[in-house]
């Protein structure tokens, strides 16, 4: 191999990208995105990216927004917040995007807040943590339900079933840790006592040790906050250990993959999730149904089973594009104002009503409580 030649080529391409930085301008709408397409959170970023690409193509095929084509510029953070900051800067400075829709994980979203606030560019985050929009930041919005909402929804359901003692087990990634924090904080409000608080690593292969401890408490239910392989292994281990009390998962497992991995052990597991997972089971009168079915049909035709995460990308993209449409310009301040005025936007995650004090705009009702029965999602009444 000729290393020198390769190095020359690299040097040339660097120079080219240095000079070709400021080209293109006003005749396209540039949507920037940084997603965890690889790494531990890739099941978020991957489906988000596919959704963004699919719908940007669709918008363009239909003639764009106000006659302008939409261009998607995206980078893979691998879930690394340091990369996220640099890619956010790259999107803002080099690519000069009009709006950013991205940030698969809470960590990467939180990391760029400083940058988007000081640069003044609308940013719609696709991550869960409530801290992203609380306290409200001028330029920062988010579309997924928060982990606090998930905990609240779960506690509501537990109370209905007369459960007051809960064993908590969570992954030690951002999602699990943040969910754990919200759960612990929220439990007293619902009169629920957390009798065990265990955790596991993202790549752990066996949680029976933690669950054995939980088995020997007087918990009436097990709650697991986490995503990836962890929750599926927890589910299997729970059954293996003969734990019969109800198992609750978080919205982190809201994809068919979870049922596939956990198999029979997933029977009876409950979790809060967006209506997307049960689109076909909704009442026909439900205003969300057409949106959900359309998204599901389109996504599944191209990429296989939907997850709610891709839905968030759909919501974020359309909230941004509709705001640009309403603003009749890509002026960042105007677009920001229009995003904040989003009302009655029917998305996959729920019906959004944003305001100056609420940059999420979803209520607890946006979550449905689901139970897994016969290998499929069912709505809990």
């Amino acid at each position, binding site marked *: 191999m000729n290393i020198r030649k390769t190095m020359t080529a690299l040097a040339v391409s660097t120079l080219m990208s240095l000079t070709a930085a400021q080209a293109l301008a006003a005749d396209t709408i540039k949507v920037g995105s940084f997603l965890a397409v*690889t790494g531990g959170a890739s*099941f978020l970023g991957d489906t988000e990216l596919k959704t963004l690409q699919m719908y940007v193509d669709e918008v363009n095929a239909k003639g764009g927004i106000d006659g302008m084509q939409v261009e998607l510029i995206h980078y893979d953070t691998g879930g690394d917040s340091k990369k996220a900051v640099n890619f956010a800067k790259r999107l803002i400075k080099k690519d000069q995007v009009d709006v950013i829709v991205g940030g698969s994980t809470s960590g990467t979203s939180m990391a760029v807040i400083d940058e988007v606030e000081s640069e003044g560019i609308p940013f719609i985050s696709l991550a869960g943590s409530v801290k992203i929009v609380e306290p409200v930041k001028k330029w920062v919005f988010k579309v997924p339900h928060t982990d606090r909402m998930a905990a609240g929804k779960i506690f509501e359901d537990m109370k209905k079933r007369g459960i007051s003692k809960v064993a908590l087990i969570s992954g030690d990634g951002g999602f699990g840790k943040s969910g754990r924090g919200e759960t612990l904080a929220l439990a007293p409000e619902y009169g629920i006592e957390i009798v065990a608080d265990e955790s*596991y690593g993202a790549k752990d292969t066996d949680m029976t*040790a933690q669950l*054995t401890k939980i088995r020997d408490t007087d918990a009436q239910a097990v709650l697991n906050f986490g995503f990836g392989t962890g929750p*599926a292994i927890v589910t*299997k281990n729970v059954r293996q*250990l003969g734990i019969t009390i109800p198992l609750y998962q978080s919205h982190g497992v809201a994809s068919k993959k979870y049922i596939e991995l956990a198999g029979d052990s997933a029977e009876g597991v409950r979790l809060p999730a967006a209506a997307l997972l049960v689109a076909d089971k909704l009442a026909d009168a439900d205003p969300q149904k057409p949106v959900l079915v359309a998204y599901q049909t389109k996504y599944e035709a191209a990429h296989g089973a939907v997850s709610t995460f891709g839905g968030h990308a759909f919501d974020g993209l359309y909230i941004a594009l509709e705001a640009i449409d309403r603003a009749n310009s890509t002026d960042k301040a105007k677009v920001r104002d229009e995003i904040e005025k989003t009302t009655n936007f029917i998305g996959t995650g729920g019906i959004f009503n944003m305001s100056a004090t609420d940059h999420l705009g979803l209520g607890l009702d946006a979550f449905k409580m689901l139970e897994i029965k016969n290998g499929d999602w069912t709505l809990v009444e």
Partner: protein
Amino acid sequence: MWDQILQFLITGVTVGATYALVALGFAIIYNASDVVNFAQGEFVMIGAMTAIALSAGDGGLPLPLALIGAVLITIAVGILLQRFAIAPARGASVVTTIIITIGASIFLRGVALLVWGKDIFAMPHFSGEIPLHIGNATLLPQNLWVMGGAALLVMGVHYFFNHTIIGKAILACSCNRTAAHLVGINVGLMMLVAYGLSAFLGAMAGILVAPITFTSYDAGVMLGLKGFSAAILGGMGNPMGAVAGGLALGLIESLAAGLISSGYKDAIGFIILLLVLFIRPSGMFGKVSAERV
């Protein structure tokens, strides 16, 4: 209490058996070529992923055939790794070979990403999922597969190195390459055998645990790290030490998670590893090498 501890032990031995197989792979390659192969975890991943890929779908092979195919493919990867990445860099310094094997592991992960995507895959249990009970503790038939499989493989490797000509020839290469060459051992071939054997162990580990742990393109990273830790804990270059190190690490993690703190179980594992090294700088069963001056 004792039921709990029994359960922790079962968990620890299962996890430890996996670590042990990975660590054994580390030890074999280290013995044969003085290289710490940081791509060892990737063998585990490739074994499991190819097994699943070969058996998947309607046109898939029956499981036993798929497993054999997966093992053969992984062995081929191991041999290719030796031939095209390790052999050309003979005589390079320790850190250079570390970076080469890290590069190889990233490369293999990259290829796996292209071939199989980012999805997580499950593999059917070999003998169902009905738990067996020992008192209040439970274990799955697959746990037995892992423990039994690992035990057989370890014994096989022991026999191979102590009672077969090829095994002894590999040991000879590790003691003194030049001398081995002089007595007519085909050193190059022995290296290939060692890497092939190491890949075989990795693949077997991957296949045995995949039904319990699932797998994905990046599943090898953590297993590689834990396997390396186990090999060091036991004493680099001592195959049976590696096995002991693996079991010890698995048990430490499981007991730490159960009795102390699940959040800090990995930290506790590493702290114990450090303490062992502070007391015995060559691991539990490593040879203390005296420097000749």
